């Protein structure tokens, strides 16, 4: 990027130097933030990967059960059994703060760990296969919610890390070098002015001295002329 045009004076120099200090400090802090975010992120992502594998396994087996159920039970009955009313699943959301990234924490209204044995339909028309399928799904549910939480967290963190990394890079490779160039060019310009001034002064002094000498010579010459 082209270095910007600045007025080479002390005010500007001081302003830029202050800016450079701020930029350096910001850069260091953002770098630390990035490193810490990264550490947290990697932990979460590792857990996330394990969770996902587990969820996929659980769902696969639940699906197998469901296929079995579908095979034995009349589709209409199965559907009406599954559709029969029941309190709907709802979640409470808390917010957790990871390095000032707000991430959601889900908690279900019912206890997730204990497997509630109540099934939402009557036992009369459906067989045990369906019960198995629904129980399998119920077992998968806490994992699924947990996965949702950790996956969302990972996504939000990834976003933040990317943003932070951009900022670190723009400070490191654009802002700071630009400020340094500007400061250097001002210092050089000012040094140059200083030198120019000095030589001008020396020149002026020379001229004054020369004039004085001329004058003195003229006076001496006038004095030595015999009357």
């Amino acid at each position, binding site marked *: 990027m082209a270095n910007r045009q600045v007025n080479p004076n002390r005010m500007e120099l001081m302003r830029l130097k202050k800016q450079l200090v701020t930029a350096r400090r910001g850069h260091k802090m953002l770098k630390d933030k990035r490193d810490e975010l990264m550490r947290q992120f990697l932990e979460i992502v590792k857990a996330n990967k394990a969770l996902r594998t587990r969820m*996929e396994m659980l769902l696969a087996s639940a699906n197998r059960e469901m296929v079995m159920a579908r095979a034995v039970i009349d589709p209409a009955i199965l559907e009406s059994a599954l559709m029969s009313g029941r309190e709907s699943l709802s979640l409470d959301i808390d917010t957790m703060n990871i390095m000032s990234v707000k991430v959601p924490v889900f908690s279900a209204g019912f206890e997730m760990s204990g497997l509630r044995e109540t099934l939402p339909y009557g036992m009369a028309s459906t067989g045990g296969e369906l019960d198995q399928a629904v129980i399998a*799904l119920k077992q998968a549910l806490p994992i699924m919610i947990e996965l*949702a939480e950790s996956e969302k967290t990972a*996504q939000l963190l990834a976003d933040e890390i990317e943003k932070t990394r951009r900022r670190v890079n723009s400070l490191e490779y654009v802002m700071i070098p630009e400020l340094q160039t500007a400061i250097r060019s001002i210092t050089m310009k000012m040094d140059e002015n200083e030198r120019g001034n000095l030589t001008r002064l020396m020149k002026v002094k020379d001229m004054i001295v020369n004039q004085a000498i001329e004058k003195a010579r003229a006076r001496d010459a006038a004095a030595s002329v015999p009357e």
Partner: protein
Amino acid sequence: MYKVGVIGDRDSIIGFRAIGMSVFDTSDAVQAGEYLRQMVRENYAVVFITESMAEGNLELIRELRSQKLPAVIPIPSITGSTGLGMRQVRESVRKAVGMDLFADPNEK
């Protein structure tokens, strides 16, 4: 209180109705996108979407990633996992780290 919903083909997701999730069944990706938008408007906390339906709505899902809610989570459908969910996890890693840490060296 926030709701939990599922989008996918009927066979894959019907069972979730029994455990209290809202079920939106479709096997059309466009319709699935519509449902997803509707669920965002209705403040769902978590949307599980079958991988086959997610495949057709990757743009929308990517947009939703940076929002706090909802969490859109791909799940395998009844025909099995296509690996999309895992791919998305790896995509997050690539985005954050700048490289794919979990890349399978045998996969090219």
